[in-house]
């Protein structure tokens, strides 16, 4: 923020520092341990009267001089140059806080150089005792250099009390300083042995080579064993959050852990081969394998250490992208472009959106991500996103995993960055155009009420139903199912609700398969059927999320009444807005790639093996694990809670747009499920359900009350909605506790408010709109239509496709019996209504 950012593309991210640091760190540890190795080996040569070993030490010390003093020194300065360029703010803090720590280290390094030069140039020219003494000075200075640098490196991981005091000593003698020093000392000795191999295997004399290779084995193995308790102590010195990041094997760290752990066997196999095959090329190759394994071990360790420090450079003080923690609030309030110094665009407009986004990318992303380069390339990571999805990703980033810093800036900043990534880096055009829907005519002609004797009211319990377009990969539930409920009324002055002696059958899409039988259910006082074969298709194969079901009531093969309703079903889930994949060839919704990407994300975050399961031919069913009360997995969230909870972290603050990101309720898609009268008069999802954060928080609260810890982890981030206060939200069970109509329509009256109060849910499944009846036993849905498709619904495929029964028996698309329409069922005019208060009142929102 303070400093300009060096804009890199291919060489962006940690590449530069990783390359130079790992090499330097390897050589620097070798320089420290190698001192011990040289002096002890030389001493052993003198004591055992083995001039050949002393001669070896002399040769090795030249190799040592060239590698450590020249290469080590230059790469050391190189690290400094590099971090100054990549993270100037943090480097400045390190320089200013520890200026005399560095200066002291510099003094020790100067002493180290003098000692090493004297050691090499005077080898064999002065007494053994004096030469060994100079060697010991080298050892001392080398280790003191490590002592100084180690304190500052450890400081970045665990700054301890320095965060409050700003005191040099608090920072230097920080919690992980001593274990780190012990560990690094052991590693230094181990590397001395490893580098010893490299020169030892080239010795021609068999006896000498054997002696020295065996000698180096001890130097490698013993320090390795000694290092283990220090590593454990090191781990214990970390903060609980840091320990958890390692233990939880956060996806970003698991590679580092793997790398760290798997180089160890390679190291030992190489050593065994070297000892066992004491001749020729095999031994030499093994020595270099061991050298590389050592480099890998070091690289893995440093990677893990740096990873554990995420999302900070100085833990708790400065984020990975160089922004100080105490700047975060100001940046979020004022906007990042108004807070940073080195930017051109202080205001964002449609014209400069991409240029401003580029500056934000530079400020927030480039310190860790390359563009097309080998290190942490941003392109594959953001490939699947459109601008909306990218914006959502940025919004939730760093919250659940905590590996990356959270996005800092205003919503406008965030969108500019999202659009820069999607439109400038990926060259995508935003927002696909609205789908053009071909109308599907349907016959809604009324039946003459004078001759009609029976009224057949039918509705689907669900007004919208989504299922996976790639069921061979995953499905939310075992199979798409829909329930329809029908009530047959014989018209009369006092109509009869016919419950037996008749047969009700249904056929899907007019004439698909044999008719199904509907069974009378006492609980609902209706004939009911569960339909298991659902496809959003017409008979001719065209996509149609509103197939028709024909229900026929017969008595002794005589047709009493017949009607049709839609059976809403779609594959149009919005997964691909964020999870990539192209549009499915089979119809709207996700294709196989999207479906697999979803599983990959799940595997990565939750360490599952779902992709492997699918590759073995076993499709995944979400509810198989995420059922609300699965006894064997009490820590798992129920499906609704997991889906809404996890995604709300990314979609908070977006209003009803957030719902349409996944559900097929948008006005531009191929389904447009939200089509009832409430849609028509401009109410949005959140008017009844609350915002995405409200929906998620209430579900999570219930899971949290059941003792599922992950619910709390997610809830922590759901503060975007002004209505949501984690303490006040009431727990809610999915599919049971849902918005009540009477929340707004108090006493069946026109509402005073269009914002439903939260925490006031239906108490049981039986109390849901789709299950309830009026005082006369008629189901709510049979007079009002299915939820989300309330009469008069506006179906996108044909205006009145959802209103057929209303038209058929009443001649209008309005709720059955409204506008004084008692005569739908009653053959006489009724004085008062027993259905519910004002049931026959004039319908207000007429077409």
């Amino acid at each position: 923020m303070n400093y300009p950012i060096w804009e890199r593309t291919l060489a962006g991210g940690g590449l530069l520092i990783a390359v130079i640091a790992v090499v330097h760190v390897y050589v620097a540890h070798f320089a420290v341990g190698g001192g011990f190795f040289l002096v002890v080996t030389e001493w052993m040569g003198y004591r055992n009267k083995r001039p050949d070993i002393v001669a070896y030490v002399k040769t090795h010390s030249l190799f040592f001089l060239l590698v450590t003093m020249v290469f080590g020194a230059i790469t050391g300065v190189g690290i400094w140059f590099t971090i100054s360029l990549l993270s100037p703010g943090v480097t400045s803090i390190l320089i200013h806080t520890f200026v005399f720590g560095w200066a002291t280290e510099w003094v020790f390094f100067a002493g180290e150089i003098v000692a090493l030069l004297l050691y090499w140039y005077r080898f064999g020219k002065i007494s053994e005792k004096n030469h060994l003494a100079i060697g010991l000075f080298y050892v001392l200075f080398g280790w003191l250099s490590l002592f100084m640098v180690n304190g500052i490196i450890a400081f970045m991981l665990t700054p301890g009390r320095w965060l409050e005091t700003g005191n040099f000593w608090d920072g230097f003698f920080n919690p992980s300083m001593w274990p780190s020093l012990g560990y690094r000392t052991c590693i230094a000795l181990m590397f001395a042995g490893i580098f010893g191999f490299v020169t030892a295997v080239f010795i021609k004399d068999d006896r000498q080579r054997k002696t020295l290779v065996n000698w180096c084995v001890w130097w490698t193995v013993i320090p390795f064993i000694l290092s283990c308790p220090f590593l454990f102590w090191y781990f214990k010195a970390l903060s609980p959050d840091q320990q958890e990041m390692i233990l939880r094997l956060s996806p970003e760290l698991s590679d580092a852990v793997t790398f760290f752990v798997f180089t160890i066997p390679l190291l030992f196999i190489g050593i065994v081969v070297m000892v066992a095959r004491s001749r020729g090329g095999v031994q030499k190759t093994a020595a270099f394998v061991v050298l590389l394994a050592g480099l890998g071990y070091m690289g893995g360790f440093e990677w893990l250490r740096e990873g554990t420090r995420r999302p900070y450079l100085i833990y708790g003080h400065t984020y990975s992208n160089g922004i100080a923690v105490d700047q975060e609030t100001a940046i979020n309030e004022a906007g990042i472009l108004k807070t940073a110094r080195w930017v051109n665009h202080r205001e964002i407009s449609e014209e400069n959106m991409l240029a401003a986004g580029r500056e934000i990318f530079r400020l927030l992303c480039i310190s860790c991500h390359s563009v097309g380069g080998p290190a942490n390339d941003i392109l594959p990571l953001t490939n699947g996103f459109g601008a909306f999805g990218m914006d959502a990703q940025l919004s939730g980033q760093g919250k659940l995993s905590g590996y990356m810093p959270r996005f800092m800036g205003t919503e406008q900043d965030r969108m500019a960055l999202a659009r820069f990534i999607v439109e400038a880096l990926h060259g995508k055009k935003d927002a696909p155009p609205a789908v053009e829907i071909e109308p599907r005519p349907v016959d809604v002609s009324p039946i003459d009420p004078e001759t009609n004797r029976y009224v057949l009211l039918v509705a689907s319990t669900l007004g919208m139903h989504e299922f996976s377009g790639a069921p061979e990969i995953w499905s939310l539930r075992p199979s798409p199912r829909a329930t329809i409920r029908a009530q047959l009324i014989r018209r009369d002055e006092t109509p009869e609700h016919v419950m037996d002696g008749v047969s009700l059958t249904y056929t899907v899409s007019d004439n698909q398969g044999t008719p199904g039988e509907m069974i009378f259910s006492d609980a609902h006082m209706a004939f009911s059927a569960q339909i298991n074969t659902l496809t959003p298709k017409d008979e001719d194969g065209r996509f149609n999320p509103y197939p028709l079901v024909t229900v026929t009531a017969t008595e002794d093969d005589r047709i009493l009444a017949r009607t049709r309703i839609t059976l809403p079903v779609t594959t149009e889930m919005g997964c691909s807005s964020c999870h990539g994949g192209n549009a499915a060839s089979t119809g709207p919704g996700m294709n196989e790639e999207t479906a697999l990407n979803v599983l990959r994300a799940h595997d990565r975050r939750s360490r599952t093996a779902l992709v492997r399961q699918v590759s073995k031919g076993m499709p995944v069913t979400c509810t198989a694990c995420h059922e609300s009360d699965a006894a064997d997995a009490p820590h798992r969230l129920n499906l609704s809670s997991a889906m809404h909870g996890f995604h709300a972290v990314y979609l908070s603050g977006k209003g009803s747009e957030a719902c349409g990101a996944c559900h097929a309720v948008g006005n531009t898609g191929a389904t447009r499920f939200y089509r009832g009268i409430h849609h028509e008069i401009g109410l949005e999802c959140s008017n009844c359900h609350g915002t995405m954060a409200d929906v998620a928080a209430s579900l999570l609260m219930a899971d949290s009350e059941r003792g599922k810890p992950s619910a709390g982890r997610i809830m922590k981030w759901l503060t975007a909605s002004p209505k949501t206060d984690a303490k006040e939200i009431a727990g809610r069970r999915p599919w049971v506790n849902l918005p009540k109509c009477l929340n707004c329509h108090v006493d069946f009256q026109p509402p005073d408010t269009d914002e439903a109060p939260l925490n006031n849910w239906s108490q049981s499944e039986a109390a849901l709109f789709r299950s309830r009846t009026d005082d006369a036993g008629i189901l709510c849905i049979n007079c009002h239509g299915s939820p989300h498709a309330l009469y008069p619904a506006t179906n996108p495929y044909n205006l009145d496709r959802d209103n057929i029964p209303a038209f058929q028996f009443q001649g209008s698309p309005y709720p059955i019996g409204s506008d004084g329409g008692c005569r739908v069922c009653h053959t006489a005019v009724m004085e008062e209504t027993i259905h519910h208060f004002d049931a026959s009142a004039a319908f207000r929102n007429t077409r």
Partner: protein
Amino acid sequence: MEFAFLVPAPDPIPIPWMWLQGLLLATFVLHLLFMNAMLGTGIIALVAMFRRRASDLPVAKAISTTLPTLIAFTVNTGVAPLLFIHVLYGQFIFTSSILMAIWWLSAVGILLIAYYAAYLSNNMTLMLSPGRWSRYLDIPGGSLLNLAEPMLIPRYLHFVTASVAVGGLVMAWIWQLKGRKGFADAEEKSRQAMGWFTGATAVQFAVGTIFLFTLPRGIRSLFLGGEATATFLFAASITGAIVALYLGVRRKIRSCTAATVTTIILMALVRDRVRQAFLAPIFSPAELPVALQTGPFVLFLVSLTLCIAAVMLMIRLAFGRRQEIRP
């Protein structure tokens, strides 16, 4: 764009700035000496190589054995002043380094010494010119260079010429020491080496004059009577150079070396005045916030003292009269 806004806010320093300034100058002079010796002898060796004269071979050989040591010390002594300049002028040098990041970073990798010196000059001038920093907004990729700076080339030549002079002086020392060991025509070689010193120093007067006149008028006038300290330092360093040249012609190696080191110290002070004068309109290190912590400074002083003692002890162990092993 108002460039003063671009200058980042500095971090506090642990002890008053004068101490850091003193350390900066002291270590910088040390670095200059090693750097000059390394670069100068390197250039002389390069010339010897191209001339391919048999008589030059021992020169090249002598240099090639000392060069690695000189490089090691040049790098080591370069670290300290770079550290202190970052403490005092961090908000300038971090920034200018980033603006020309690619070049600055290649200075590490590119082993060609000329390149190293060349780009170093460039950054040290860019850090003094915040007025040119706003070019970053068009060129954020770290490929800026301060090529429009008029003092860039004279300044670079000034350092290179000084290096050749010091290189000659170092060679003269080497041959004189060899002469004591009875090396044939060491006397002649030493004379030739002093020729490099006097020749380069004579040229330096011309280069230095050009350098002086490429400074902005306001800053130049400080050294020509405009400000007492600056004028005194400048006059003293010119005098030192004249004395060194005179002693060089007379081939008084020892006193010539003393005069040269004195001149370098004075020139380093002059250089520092130039830097402060450039930044004066927007910054002076005296303005840096101080968060006093003397403990670490004591740590440094103690370790420095102990290290010097240890080095002296090691030198005694390595070269003491009775330490040589008789073959």
